[in-house]
């Protein structure tokens, strides 16, 4: 949407905390779907795909699938840490995004399936496409898993949330 509202400018700060005054989808999805005034007698429109995805994120943690991914993450970490024991190097890696890109796809997987990458989201606020999950796959082993979840989620009807009264 090209006509993004110009909000108050970035509020400064130390550089340790990212700030956005105008909301991207990632930042407000939960708020506008789950919070705010609502009255049951009113019609609520359904939202294809996105609602079911937010539910998916909440249940994903307690599954064998998840456990195996955690285990994989820890094992891979082991291999990495044989070379990089020192704290300074660890810090550097994190700051530069190096370490996190190496281990990407483990905890990151569910998030990307949900929202796309956070930074990416910032860049393409104008993107009008509703299907985001097919983009920008990394080539690590979790790709298959992630894609599967995205597709399953993307085809959901959102009906489970629609029927929820609040």
């Amino acid at each position, binding site marked *: *949407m090209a*006509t993004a*509202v110009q*909000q*108050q400018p970035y*509020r400064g700060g130390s550089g*340790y*905390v*990212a700030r*956005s005054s*105008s*909301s991207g*989808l990632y*930042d*407000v*999805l939960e*708020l*506008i*779907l789950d*919070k*705010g*005034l*609502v*009255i049951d*007698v*009113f*019609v*609520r*429109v*359904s*939202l294809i795909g996105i609602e079911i995805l937010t539910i998916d*994120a*909440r249940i994903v943690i*307690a599954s064998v699938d*998840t*456990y*195996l991914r*955690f*285990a994989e*993450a*820890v*094992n891979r*970490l*082991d291999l990495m*840490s044989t070379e990089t024991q020192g704290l300074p190097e*660890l810090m550097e890696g*994190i*700051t530069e995004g190096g*370490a*996190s890109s190496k*281990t*990407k796809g*483990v*905890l*990151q997987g569910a*998030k990307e399936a*949900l929202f796309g990458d956070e930074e990416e989201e910032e860049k393409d*606020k104008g993107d009008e496409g*509703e299907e985001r999950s097919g983009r920008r796959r990394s080539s690590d082993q979790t790709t298959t898993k992630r894609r599967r979840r995205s597709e399953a989620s993307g085809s959901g009807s959102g009906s489970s949330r629609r029927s929820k009264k*609040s």
Partner: protein
Amino acid sequence: MADSDRKPRYVYGVVRGDGSTPAVKGIAGAPLELVDAGEVAALTSVAPAEYLEAGREDLLTHSRVLEATLEQGTVLPMRFGVVVPDDETLRGRLLEGHREELLAQLAEMDGKVELTLKGVYDEAAILRELVAGDREIGYLRNAIAGKSEAATYYERIRLGELVAAAFAARQERDSAAVVEELRPCAVAVRVGEPIHERMAVNASFLVERSGQPKFDRAVDEIGKREAGRIRFRVTGPLPPHSFVELEAVV
């Protein structure tokens, strides 16, 4: 009775009766209109015919309309997706039926905004921390190392289970600590569930506009302390989504 009185309306939020619409378009490009009932008014736009399914663009429009309204004054945001069949229903079921509540909440929200705080763990940092902090995790990890996946299937599930549990405990502790540290800077706080696996903190703070710098400084302090471990993001000022509610009317 004008034609538009009988058209279905998408409802963004509630403002005072003397409020004005912001200079942005509503859903499907429709102009924003106030439907008022004396002291309170609903911020709406005529909904497209057969408007039953919404997409990403509509979510963003909802959000941007409300943010633009917030710049002009106090607004009580509706949840996404509320459509009323006609103006009479809107007045009866919302504006008149809840007048006292709405007025009270408008007064309560004057001069306040919602700021959301999300903290996301650095994956490598948090996993290292969990491995170092739990003997059984370390032991299992060593036992599995170098063996085939098939031969260690159950050990790997057990390892993952332990890591997931340790992670959840750590997350709960970190979230609580951050929220408690920021609580003095806010009028009210709502702590949400993590919405993805790597999330450390997901909370909303109702903050006086005048108190925003204090809040910002406090978050910066935390961000500096947790650098390399948790990456924080503050979004706002937003309308007070997490702090408005209506009593159900029977």
